[in-house]
């Protein structure tokens, strides 16, 4: 027993001693060097990790834009109101630039659809429906919904979901010329897989919870009250019974009660959240006026 205690203490001491720590750091550094022994071991291990991690940003953007065309076919065109679109872009970019992936350009679009939904295409194009916007009551709530979608883009959730697509097993890049051939067919099929994942089946529940927590963190960092993510879900919960559900946040996301519970327990991390911005007046002025015009 004594020797066991000693072993444990020795292990602890090694872990905490600066010298040993430096050695451990060296090994970690080596992991990043593909030529090192550690790097080669890791390289083998990461090959089974999703190919999406190797997709270039340019290809990711092409995937996103192609998906954007399909989503407008399905849900309708953007609401023809430039002031509204600009406002949603300002709120969205405010949170996106404080997200874990802040250096890529983001575009936010309000689609003219009554289905209450929001989704993110790879590369940074984010869509929110007029139906979901109707439920939102202040700028912080809009920021939370958009930050949830930014979270999906940042973590490349959509691409990770379709990592078995044939296109990603091959070269994984596309040009206008290769789009015409067999690579193009694989590309089209992958866009089909993405539509089915994002619009019908939904992403993995774990990804949704991850995006919810990212929304809390990003809205908080930007200066919006992160509790807005919870209040918007509570509003959706009230509407759940009367909603047909098809294609909405209800059908493609985990149960609202569970999301609300997980978010509520994480809110403790932000004790000063109540003092942060909600900005109901500017939201009402821009979004509610638009509703009246319609």
């Amino acid at each position: 027993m004594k020797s066991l205690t000693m072993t444990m203490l020795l292990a602890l001491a090694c872990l905490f001693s600066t010298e040993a720590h430096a050695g451990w750091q060296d090994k970690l550094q080596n992991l990043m060097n593909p030529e090192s022994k550690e790097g080669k071991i890791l390289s083998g291990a990461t090959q089974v990790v999703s190919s999406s991690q190797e997709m270039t940003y340019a290809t990711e953007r092409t995937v996103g834009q192609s998906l954007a065309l399909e989503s407008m076919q399905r849900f309708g065109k953007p609401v023809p109101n430039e002031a509204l679109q600009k406002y949603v872009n300002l709120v969205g970019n405010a949170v996106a630039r404080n997200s874990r992936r802040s250096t890529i350009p983001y575009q936010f679009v309000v689609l003219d659809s009554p289905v209450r939904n929001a989704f993110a295409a790879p590369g940074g194009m984010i869509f929110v429906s007029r139906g979901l916007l109707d439920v939102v009551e202040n700028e912080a709530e809009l920021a939370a919904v958009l930050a949830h979608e930014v979270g999906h883009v940042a973590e490349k959730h959509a691409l990770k979901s379709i990592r078995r697509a044939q296109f990603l097993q091959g070269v994984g890049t596309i040009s206008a010329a290769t789009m015409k051939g067999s690579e193009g067919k694989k590309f089209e099929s992958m866009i089909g897989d993405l539509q089915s994942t994002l619009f019908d089946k939904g992403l993995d529940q774990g990804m949704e919870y991850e995006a919810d927590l990212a929304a809390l963190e990003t809205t908080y960092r930007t200066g919006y009250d992160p509790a807005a993510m919870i209040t918007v879900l509570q509003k959706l919960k009230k509407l759940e019974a009367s909603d047909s559900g098809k294609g909405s946040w209800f059908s493609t996301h985990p149960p609202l009660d569970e999301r609300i519970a997980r978010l509520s327990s994480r809110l403790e991390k932000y004790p000063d959240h109540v003092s942060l911005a909600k900005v109901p007046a500017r939201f009402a002025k821009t979004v509610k006026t638009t509703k009246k015009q319609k």
Partner: protein
Amino acid sequence: MKKTIVALLLLALAAAPALGAEKRWVVSEGTALKAEQSVTAASVAELPVGAELTVVEGAGRWLKVRSANGKEGWVYAGRVSDTAPVAEVGGGDGLFGDSTQKSQINTAKADSARSIRGLSPEVAQYAKQRGTPESLKKELDKILSRKVSDKELRTFLKEGKIGEYAQ
């Protein structure tokens, strides 16, 4: 025996502060190191996304930090994170390619300049094959042309009294 245990524990405790130095990474675009805890204070240095900082003091909304080249100043807590930002993959580099994070970010910027020119040739070809209506291609062009400048965003946050601009 007891002495050995105590010595080992002391060793562990002594080494702890070396590990305890809190690190933060810049996650937001346009972050500056400020001379004081205010958005209107003079900038000591510009901090690129991905820059590693050591926390000197502070909790709450402003942190006193030291940059890698030894400059000290204040940074708004919302602009940094306790985890590094996502690195972009440019060129043909994989996750463990030999590009540095900075060059990967630069690649993303170069790509973004390309993407904001409107529908890319690849997407135009995709639309052709799919028989996408011309009107939807125009809508996508309009979406891609909508840009938010840093100045517009600062004004927007200031007017809404959000984050660094809260009173």
